[in-house]
């Protein structure tokens, strides 16, 4: 009953890999977009804001289908990536990571942006009057002060990526060993007679991993927050 089969182990490891890669690759973009949304004033900002949040409100299947159209082997970007860098996304685990990253991006950006909005802008002004260029201000003031939010955003994105299903299965299908993550495997079990035990085992694993990610996020951002408030 409790013994995890080798096939399930493959799905668990794949999920961890997909979620980790999705989170790490999207983090720099998430910080950048959050910074732009928090600080910059430009026409069309509301459009950028909308685009970033779109995956949150679209049916995941639609997001997956758009990815398939754009990043499939014959899609605009897909063909370009394959010819130029030899990167194939469709029906590969890398595609699953892309789908997970897109789906978790709004959550990540939102958490980071909120923490950047909460920074007293005069801290940044003070640093600038002391001679720090905008880039220095970002790395020595904005980034460290937003760190709790950045950690929270990253962990939230990781947990969301672990659970991504709709866009993933539409874009890269549900291939065991290649694109079958934990949700995909659970889905497959539920479609198979006698798969209840497997579905149960993987569900427990999903709960444990997601919960651990939340706890870790809470502890890390609390620690960073304490340092920021000066209690260490």
């Amino acid at each position, binding site marked *: 009953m409790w013994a995890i089969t080798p096939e399930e182990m493959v799905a668990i490891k794949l999920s961890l890999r997909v979620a980790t890669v999705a989170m790490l690759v999207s983090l720099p973009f998430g910080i950048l977009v959050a910074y732009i949304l928090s600080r910059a004033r430009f026409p069309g900002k509301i459009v950028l804001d909308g685009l970033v949040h779109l995956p949150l409100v679209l049916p995941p299947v639609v997001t997956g289908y758009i990815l398939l159209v754009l990043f499939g082997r014959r899609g605009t970007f897909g063909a370009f990536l394959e010819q130029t860098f030899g990167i194939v996304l469709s029906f590969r685990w890398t595609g699953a990571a892309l789908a997970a990253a897109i789906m978790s991006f709004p959550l990540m950006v939102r958490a980071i942006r909120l923490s950047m909005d909460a920074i007293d802008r005069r801290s940044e*002004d003070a640093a600038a009057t002391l001679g720090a260029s905008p880039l220095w201000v970002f790395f020595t003031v904005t980034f460290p002060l937003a760190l709790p939010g950045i950690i929270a955003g990253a962990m939230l994105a990781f947990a969301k990526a672990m659970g991504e299903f709709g866009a993933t299965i539409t874009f890269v299908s549900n291939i065991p060993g290649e694109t079958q993550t934990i949700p995909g495997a659970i889905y497959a079990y539920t479609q198979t007679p006698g798969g209840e035990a497997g579905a149960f085992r993987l569900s427990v694993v999903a709960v444990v991993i997601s919960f651990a990610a939340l706890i870790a996020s809470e502890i890390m951002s609390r620690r960073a927050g304490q340092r920021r408030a000066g209690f260490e």
Partner: protein
Amino acid sequence: MIEFSCRLARPRFTLDASFNAASGCLALFGPSGSGKTTIAKLIAGLDHPDSGRIVVGGRVLVDTDARVRTPVHRRRVGFVFQDGQLLPHLTVRQNLDYGRYFTPDDTSIAGFDAVVDLLGIGHLLGARPSTLSGGERQRVAIGRALLASPHLLIMDEPLASLDADRKLDILPFIERLRDELALPMIYVSHAIEEVARLATKVVRLSQGRVVAEGPPADVFASALPEAGGDRFELVSFLTGTAVRELPDYGMTVLAHPAGEITLPSQFGPPGKSLRVAVRATNVTLAIEHPHGLSVRTALKGRVRSVALGDDASALVVVELDGGDKISALLTRLAVADLGLTEGREVYALVKAVAIDERAVGSF
């Protein structure tokens, strides 16, 4: 040293101000909403004018006609915010070092140890900003600005958030910056005592415009305040030499050609030259030398001018023996009863406790 001339239109606020200042401490004085903080921000580069020109120490920082706008971090204008704005994630030492990192060594105006000494913050170096008191935070903020070796130091209401005792702790430090480092300063404040004590020049603002500029004695002694002016903002300056301290009574006695001035605190050793700001509302006039009064300070002089106001008040300016002028705000009734006319010999009485310690500075 500083040339400023800027226009800036905002909803419900327009700034249109020009002034020049030589070295020393320039005070921007006016009620809140008069534009003094806006001017400070324009000079530091934290805000930008619609049109105008700002020159500091020969460097053109802003010239909208020539499309010059130096970015904040290249202006070398130090800025001390009202609440210090220390970087909360850094220690005091790291805060102090922050600006130094961006400053070439050969342009440094003061060494780390000298600044730490001057401001008395040596025991705080390892602490985090959140553990400091308001006064300590403000001294660290001043030190941090100094260590970035600015060409000009702007202090925007640096004492406004502190209680009275802490203000008194910090004022001497600011005086030392002005005198020992010969650093040009702009001091933004609506507290007349601080301005009176520190400023070598005052630019007085109202609703985004310069309404008076000049030495503090001239700006604050102008005849009856302009319409909407505040009668509590009429201030005269007396300069004297400390002759003795009375530690038992916690007082200092100042020699002045027109008589002795008693001050409500101990201000240092005999021989020190002190400038005292006295509000016109705190000056009483007597037509003979008083006796049987608690007031210790009675300065002899002659009425120089009498200006009757539209309301109950009258402003009498007395030229004291020795040349200092002191303004007294009385009622018109009192002027009539005493027969105060030009040339009349009078004594100007000042209660020692009515003199704010903040308003007594060394000069």
